[in-house]
């Protein structure tokens, strides 16, 4: 019993994984997707977009310094951050949608951890050779060859990491300028620090942590379990077809023997180091490489493909009962995924409508409350307000300020003659404004009365207003 056993170890040492090279449809798909993802990541900050002389010409730019987010023809100001919130909601619902329909398709094909690990394994294989050569190198004692190969591999990994971190910083400032500054060692320390940090994390996550990030570090695999149901596509081993597994002998047809010849091809190609034949498990990112490996073996031994394949839990019961599995489309289009799609598209349409309906002027008005009002020499009552005027346009414009529907209240602007204020291109102006109610008028006498301040732009039809209160003497 337990008293005679070693105490249970809570720490499991990592077993190194040496995925074998594999060819097949899923591998080809993954190569293309990797190219697409890396291409988007590296090229995006270099796309130019002309917005006029006073504005940055980078198509995608997160300008933290002046608090602007540029995305092609769209410019988001801080007060419009709900667009970003909306995009995050879409991203979240999109993940729900994809997970409930296609399982862990994000993990297997699109997650940066997967893409960069794939790239790092590609480099590793290129330097050290395929699985068997890498295993041999791993077991052999440190010597000239092992040092040389490891050093080459680490150097290449570091360069990829450097390019990864280096591309990241270009999203936050003008890319060509920053590249020049980086090369001449005159860039801001934050840029170098960010690159150093991301180089390190890429190097460690892609080179050494790899599948442990997914298994121990990432919360998504846990959440996904709640997203899946019996119609969700996962990768499964058809054990009713494969078992009992064992070696096949040429010319001998054993009817009790399953199709699995226990060649370990599916295990050897797995980047997560698992055996898919043990059933669905947390570590499986559904990358599909075991399907490629097994199909290749089945072709060679003359058995039908898809001993390992994409299927849903309902297919298993159907197939065991001898009937045909449901088609992929029937799994994908079911009420749950349709509901997700509708919600996802609804948020998207709402965002688009909001984007097209928004005006390129904006204002907010806040009364100054210390003091609430000032009595002037002639007995009139004056209130002060802080108005924010936003000119979300690439040229300076003149904003015209008026008070609505109350002839007894006049509007004056601190430091400005008249009622016109000039706001610079793509700028926000904080302006102190006074409303004065003549002595004895209702607004001057009442404790509070509602007022509305209108802002319009000279020569344009758009106008906006802000509602606030006017504090009178209240006597």
């Amino acid at each position, binding site marked *: *019993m*337990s008293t005679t*056993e070693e*105490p*249970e170890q*809570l*720490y*499991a040492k990592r*077993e190194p994984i040496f995925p074998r090279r594999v060819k097949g449809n899923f591998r080809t798909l993954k190569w293309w997707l990797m190219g697409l993802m890396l291409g988007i990541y590296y090229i995006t900050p270099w796309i130019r977009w002309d917005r006029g002389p006073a504005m940055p010409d980078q198509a995608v730019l997160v300008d933290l310094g002046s608090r602007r987010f540029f995305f092609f023809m769209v410019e988001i100001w801080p007060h419009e951050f709900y667009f970003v919130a909306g995009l995050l909601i879409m991203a979240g619902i999109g993940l729900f949608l994809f997970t409930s329909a296609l399982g862990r398709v994000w993990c297997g094909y699109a997650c940066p951890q997967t893409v960069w690990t794939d790239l790092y394994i590609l480099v590793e294989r290129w330097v050290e050779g395929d699985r068997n050569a890498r295993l041999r190198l791993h077991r052999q004692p440190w010597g000239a060859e092992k040092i040389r190969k490891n050093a080459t591999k680490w150097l290449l990994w570091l360069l990829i990491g450097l390019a990864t971190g280096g591309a990241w910083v270009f999203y936050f400032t003008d890319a060509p300028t920053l590249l020049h500054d980086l090369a001449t060692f005159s860039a801001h320390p934050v840029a170098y620090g960010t690159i150093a940090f991301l180089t390190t994390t890429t190097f460690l996550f892609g080179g050494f942590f790899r599948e442990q990030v997914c298994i121990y570090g990432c919360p998504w695999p846990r959440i996904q379990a709640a997203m899946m149901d019996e119609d969700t596509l996962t990768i499964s081993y058809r054990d009713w077809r494969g078992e009992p597994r064992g070696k096949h002998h040429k010319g001998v047809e054993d009817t009790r023997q399953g199709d699995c010849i226990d060649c370990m091809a599916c*295990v050897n190609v797995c980047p997560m*180091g698992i*055996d898919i034949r043990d059933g669905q498990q947390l570590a499986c990112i559904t990358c599909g490489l075991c399907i490629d490996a097994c199909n290749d073996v089945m072709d060679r031994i003359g058995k039908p493909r898809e001993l390992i394949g994409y299927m849903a839990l309902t297919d298993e019961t159907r197939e065991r009962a001898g009937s045909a599995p449901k088609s992929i489309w029937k799994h994908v289009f079911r009420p749950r995924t349709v509901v997700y799609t509708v919600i996802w598209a609804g948020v998207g349409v709402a965002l688009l409508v909001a984007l097209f309906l928004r005006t390129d002027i904006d204002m907010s008005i806040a009364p*100054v409350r*210390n*003091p609430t009002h*000032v*009595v*002037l*020499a*002639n*007995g009139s009552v*004056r209130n*002060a307000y802080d108005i924010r005027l936003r000119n979300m346009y690439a040229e300076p414009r003149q904003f015209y300020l008026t008070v609505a529907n109350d002839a007894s209240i006049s509007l004056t602007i*601190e*430091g400005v003659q008249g009622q016109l204020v000039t706001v610079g291109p793509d700028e926000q102006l904080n302006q*102190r404004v*006074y409303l004065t109610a003549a*002595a004895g008028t209702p607004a001057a006498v009442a404790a509070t009365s509602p007022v509305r301040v209108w802002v319009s732009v000279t020569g344009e039809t758009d106008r906006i207003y802000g509602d606030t209160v006017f504090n009178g003497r209240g006597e």
Partner: protein
Amino acid sequence: MATPKKKSNDPKTTGHSWDGIEEFDNPLPRWWLWVFYLCILWSVVYWVLYPAWPMVSGATSGVLGYSSRADVEVEIADADAANQVWYDRLMSTDLDAISADPELERFAVNAGAAVFRAQCSQCHGAGADGLRAGSGFPNLLDDEWMWGGTMDDIVTTVTYGIRNEDFPDARYSEMPSFGRDELLTPEEIDQVVNHVLAISGQAHDAALAAAGAEVFDLNCASCHGADGSGDTFVGAPALNNAIWLYGGSEADIRATVNNAHFGIMPGFTNRLNPAQIRAVGAYVHQLGGGQ
């Protein structure tokens, strides 16, 4: 692939049992232990380098000689040095030209606001409204100034103060205590109070007010002006409007005529540098009443 050792389903316990409840004796995670030991080691390093142990008079000082007070002093000196270029620009710009230079005005108003909060808000209020109507502390937001509301007037007032014996240039105003010193009879005071109520547009006794006009002419007009519009040269407030430093009711006005008020204000030459005085002047000037 090495298969993991078959795990025992019977984890080790401490051997204690309370009402059949046992306590697992699992080892602490190794990373946790290492972080714990590292923290202890770090604390020893910290004691040596930085002020740490409290002693009878102060704490152990640490070999680095670190002090947060010295840090703050350096930061203040740095900030002053960084502001020096602005102070120089503020001093070399004509007082009335400051508002024409938006960059300089923004600096002056912000620096002045900080000075105001620290030095002026105790009496004039954080909102510069003189705390409340009739408090005796002038409201700096409205459009009446006892000593003038131009940049030059404001800077002079801040520099030397009001009724301040430290400075010969300090502003002085005198008002006799007409009642207490028996310069006017109670009837005359009644009359002049009603006259003041009349010229400020308040309810009054017309007969008394008419008689008060003469009393006003003889006793008050020399400073407050024949029409009661005041004189910023001698610091006499206007009486023919809605703004009252000590209250505008009949009782308030009577109290002022009887006893007079002498508000004082410190001169800030000793506390602020000339650039700070100009800055606070610029701040007050743009509060809504600047002339």
